């Protein structure tokens, strides 16, 4: 186990918890969307930390690929959430 792995991994855990707390507590939609992105970033951090093998050693590429996929999925979801919010605003002003 490498110190860097541990440090970054544990920080990832912390970020996950931070994100989750805001998702569960915060009332504003924007904050929730940001928080889910932060939560996701925490998970990605754990994955990248897992992949790390120390300086000068090629890291495990699989978690990197997973994180790349994850990032794209996250941005898709964020874009959709914002489009839904925009539509909601429009519907609410119609009512």
């Amino acid at each position, binding site marked *: *186990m490498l110190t*860097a*792995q*541990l*440090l*970054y*991994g*544990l920080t990832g*855990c912390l*970020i*996950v*918890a*931070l*994100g989750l*707390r*805001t998702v569960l*507590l915060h*009332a*504003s*939609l924007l*904050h929730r969307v*940001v928080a889910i*992105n*932060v939560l996701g*970033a925490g998970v990605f*951090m*754990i994955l*990248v*930390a*897992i*992949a790390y*093998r120390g*300086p000068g050693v*090629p*890291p*495990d*590429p*699989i978690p*990197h*690929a*997973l994180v*790349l*996929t994850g*990032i*794209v*999925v996250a*941005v*898709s*979801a964020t*874009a*959709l959430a*914002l*489009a*839904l*919010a925009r*539509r*909601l*605003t*429009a519907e*609410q002003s119609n009512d």
Partner: protein
Amino acid sequence: MNTTGLLVFDGLLLISIVSLAWSALASPDARRSVILFMAFGLVLAVAWGRLLAPDVALAEAAIGAGLSGALLLVAVGEQSNRALQDNALRVSERNALRVRATLQWVITILCVALAATLAWALVHALDRATNERLAQIVSENLAASGVSNPVTAILLNFRAYDTLLELAVLLTAVLGILALGTARPDYQRTGPVFDGLARWLVPVLILTAGYLLWVGAHAPGGAFQAGATLAAAAVVLRLAGERSIGLPQAGALRVILAAGVGMFLVVGLTLLLLGRPFLGYPPAWAGSLILLIESAAMLAIAATLVLAFLGGRPPAIAVNEENNRC
């Protein structure tokens, strides 16, 4: 850098990551919160670089921080988007206020417990460290994958199926955005300085995109980063006031949106019909097929991201379509 120096660097980086995350989430002001989130993303990108994950760093900077941030920032900027800022999602606000204080504590404790459990599990997991084997297999098979960048090999060959479905996720999102509504009203035209900048910036971005696509085969880069860069070019155009921003008309736009998944399927199913496994590229052709798929994917990603940014169809191509729902 010596180990102590590295440790100090790690410490500072992690502290800034945590504090940026914390302040992004804690800031009551939406715009501030988004800007802090973008900063968080950029620092993360540095961290990915530090952990020898340049592909991830590029993607994080372009998409995670850049595009997500831009999307959020624009959304916050819309004065009309009340739903985003007020508390429309709360089930019953009055009740929520009353139990809020207690709830806050309960959830905080829960989250602390979660972090602790996660950490505990992660420490044990790292202790086991059995994942050398799979990385080994990847590098053994890299030669047959058609590319030399292992991340690209995984994304477009070994686990190409993931990427296919990921493109389907993107397609779903953009179809959703199109189904949900029309584009935002136009921006104020920016000043002449920006116009001048745009005239330079756009070609550079397009070239960069092409380079990223090509270089992905053996170095950090690939369709997603390239697509994001291409999208950035369109965003710049849009900010400069260009209405159609280079997007084609509705029919052709649909073709482009479908291109990513479509090319994947065409290649996969053709191979299947030729008696090979689905997406089982012949090693000799693998490099070219991957580039073919990636090119199509880049266009689709770029179009998707631009549409996501516009929040719907740009007015120039909006089909006249009333919402006559019952």
